[in-house]
């Protein structure tokens, strides 16, 4: 039987990938962020997950508006590294677990989630920054297999926060129904408060972000009732990515034990981190 051993909510800001590639982990501007992940990586090493389900959004690297799925799941043994417009980062291809992906897809579709299933998928910072923060890689491989789960948070109508939360619930049922003895972590990525367009560029609301970190732990159903309008009004247009954290939270038990929590907002995005285990 499969088991969800941990959930992680975290932000996927592209500049973190640049800082990582340039070895700026000890740079004063970046040290607070990278240091927060030291205990998270130790925790993950103890949990020793077989698979990480990474709930992320693409930013126009491999999904474009000619065809734009609401929810898309990778079902491949390897995922390539996308060129986002800056050249391809020197990272190894990401290992998949196609068998588990297909199990997940079958379970989710029969549970009412009509997914797009991708046998070729190149991943980018939305997926890779969380991976860099949480897992090691060698020149050839990563410390964990993955299932990329891509969510439309760009082109409205987006899936509702509530639907994302329900998707998480369905993922939990799918993992438990898996016959293999798999240890799974699930990562909900994105946000927190930020706006990247118009005169409101640079908007950050730390009070909102801290409240979100409180409520993702204790009141996820309340958060799932928020509309996109409310999220965008308070936390900025691009903060609507936070609906992806609710997929992660939905996959955990109703009551959770929080293991880590951190917040850092140096520039134009509130970068949050929270980790949970089932209570």
């Amino acid at each position, binding site marked *: 039987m499969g088991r969800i051993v941990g959930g992680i909510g975290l932000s996927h800001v*592209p*500049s973190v990938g640049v*800082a990582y590639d340039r070895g700026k982990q000890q*740079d*004063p*501007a*970046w040290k607070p962020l990278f240091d927060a992940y030291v205990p998270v990586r130790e925790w993950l090493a103890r949990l020793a997950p077989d698979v990480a389900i990474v709930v992320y959004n693409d*930013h*126009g*690297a491999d999904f*474009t*508006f*000619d065809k734009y799925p609401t929810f898309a799941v990778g079902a491949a043994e390897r995922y390539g590294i*996308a*060129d*986002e*417009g*800056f*050249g391809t980062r020197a990272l190894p291809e990401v290992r998949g677990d196609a068998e588990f992906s297909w199990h997940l897809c079958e379970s989710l579709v029969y549970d009412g989630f009509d997914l797009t299933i991708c046998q070729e998928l190149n991943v980018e910072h939305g997926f890779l920054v969380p991976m860099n923060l949480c897992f090691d890689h060698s020149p050839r491989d990563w410390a964990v297999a993955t299932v990329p789960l891509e969510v439309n948070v*760009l*082109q*409205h*109508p*987006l899936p*509702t926060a509530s639907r994302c939360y329900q998707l998480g619930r369905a993922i939990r049922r799918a993992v438990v129904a898996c016959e293999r003895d798999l240890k799974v972590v699930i990562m909900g990525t994105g946000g927190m408060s930020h*706006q*990247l*367009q*118009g*005169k*409101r*560029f*640079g908007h950050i609301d730390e009070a909102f972000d801290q409240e979100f970190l409180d409520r993702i732990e204790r009141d996820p159903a309340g958060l799932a009732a928020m*509309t*996109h*309008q409310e999220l*965008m*009004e308070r936390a900025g*247009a*691009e903060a609507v990515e936070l609906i992806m954290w609710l997929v992660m939270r939905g996959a955990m038990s109703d009551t959770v034990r929080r293991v880590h929590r951190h917040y850092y*907002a*140096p*520039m*134009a995005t509130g970068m949050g981190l929270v980790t949970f285990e089932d209570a």
Partner: protein
Amino acid sequence: MTNKQIDPSRPIPDTTVFDGRLSQRGYRLNKLCASLTTPQNRAAFKAHEDAYMMRFALLEEEKELVRRRDFAGLIKAGLNIYLMIKLGACTGHSLYRMGAQMRGESYEAFLATRKIKDAV
């Protein structure tokens, strides 16, 4: 419609909601920017910008927004912010430089509003 997520009667100040209508309007611009994800296409854009824009059948007003690097105007014309970052990368405008222009201030003035301006 039930369960409406965006309330048109309460526009969010200084914000463009990238919805289907806007995505349709900005389709050519987004398609051009999405193509800037190979070194060959970036080189072609840099070498002959106007010829490259012809390939994507941009309207004259869209070409003019690109030529002027009018980032606020491009957003209003339906270019998605994340696709615009690819145009910025190809033309030497970082996200924060584009942001400062959209705010109507210098890059240095924008950086002065940030907590830790070295975290770029």
